[in-house]
């Protein structure tokens, strides 16, 4: 008797489901960054608006990368619905705090998926996830550095203006240079 389940897709039902949940999470993150960009734009934080727009594009790329993988493996990739995205934020600083929290949540989610892949012995998906796990090092680094600018520069006087200017210049170097 043929193995119809395996012929259909090499993804187990569980892995397909959690990957689709991650697709949704990336879509929501993209929408959230766009909302942050909009808030920054209308509050005069021009550089940060551009930075968050770029982050939004990156999250969408992540979503599409996952989407393609599920499809390529014969799975059912689901285009997610994104609702109730926050519009207003308390302060300039709180935007960056939320951005960091979001990145932490994404990292934790990828860790859980990697764990699940190991438990299910799905090493193909596990290998595919390595790119995302590595990417999260950079994502969290940049979000954390941005938030640290509020401590380093301070918000008084022209502080917020300086922070805004410095945000897009944050770069992650993955090689140690002594």
């Amino acid at each position, binding site marked *: *008797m*043929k*193995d*119809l*389940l*395996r*012929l*259909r897709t090499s993804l187990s*039902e569980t892995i397909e489901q959690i990957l689709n949940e991650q697709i949704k999470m990336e879509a929501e993150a993209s929408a959230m960054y766009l909302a942050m960009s909009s808030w920054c734009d209308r509050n005069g934080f021009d550089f940060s608006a551009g930075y968050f727009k770029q982050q939004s594009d990156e999250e969408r790329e992540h979503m599409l990368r996952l989407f393609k993988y599920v499809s390529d493996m014969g799975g*059912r990739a689901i285009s997610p619905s994104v609702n109730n995205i926050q519009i207003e934020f308390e302060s300039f600083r709180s935007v960056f705090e939320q951005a960091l929290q979001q990145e932490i949540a994404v990292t934790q989610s990828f860790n859980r998926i990697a764990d699940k892949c190991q438990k299910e012995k799905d090493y193909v998906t596990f290998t595919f996830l390595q790119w995302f796990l590595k990417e999260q090092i950079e994502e969290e680094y940049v979000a954390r550095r941005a938030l640290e600018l509020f401590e380093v520069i301070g918000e008084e006087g022209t502080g917020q203006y300086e922070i805004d200017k410095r945000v897009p210049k944050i770069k992650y170097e993955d090689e140690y240079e002594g």
Partner: protein
Amino acid sequence: MQYQQISSLGSHLFYMMHTAAQLPEIYTSEAGAVYQCDRHNRLMLSFAGELTVLKLDAFLRLKRTVDKIDLDAMASSPERSSDFSIITVCGCDRCFVLPLTEVYALKELLSGAKFVLELNSMLHECLNASLV
């Protein structure tokens, strides 16, 4: 099985002719049976006197839909509309209108069939592994 109950007669007739004689039976319960056709990669659901030919995708969709039906809510609700569940899924040309007992029976049948499909998958993997 009754021929007149079958919607698209051509393809179904082919399956029907092969059902009992050649197709492997995946799972049987008092309410019906699920067969697998290896030639066409289809599953055949025989339930409540009717035969439904399904692709695996549609079978899994049907199972998910049936699993989501809250039997407790059906049983406890005094609404007349709760006496029956209407089940339609994409890729399945049959519309199921079932009372609680039949929903339960269908749920059990589909779960049993899904279990055997998974078991078959594991056996394939084990057999492949033993060759390495």
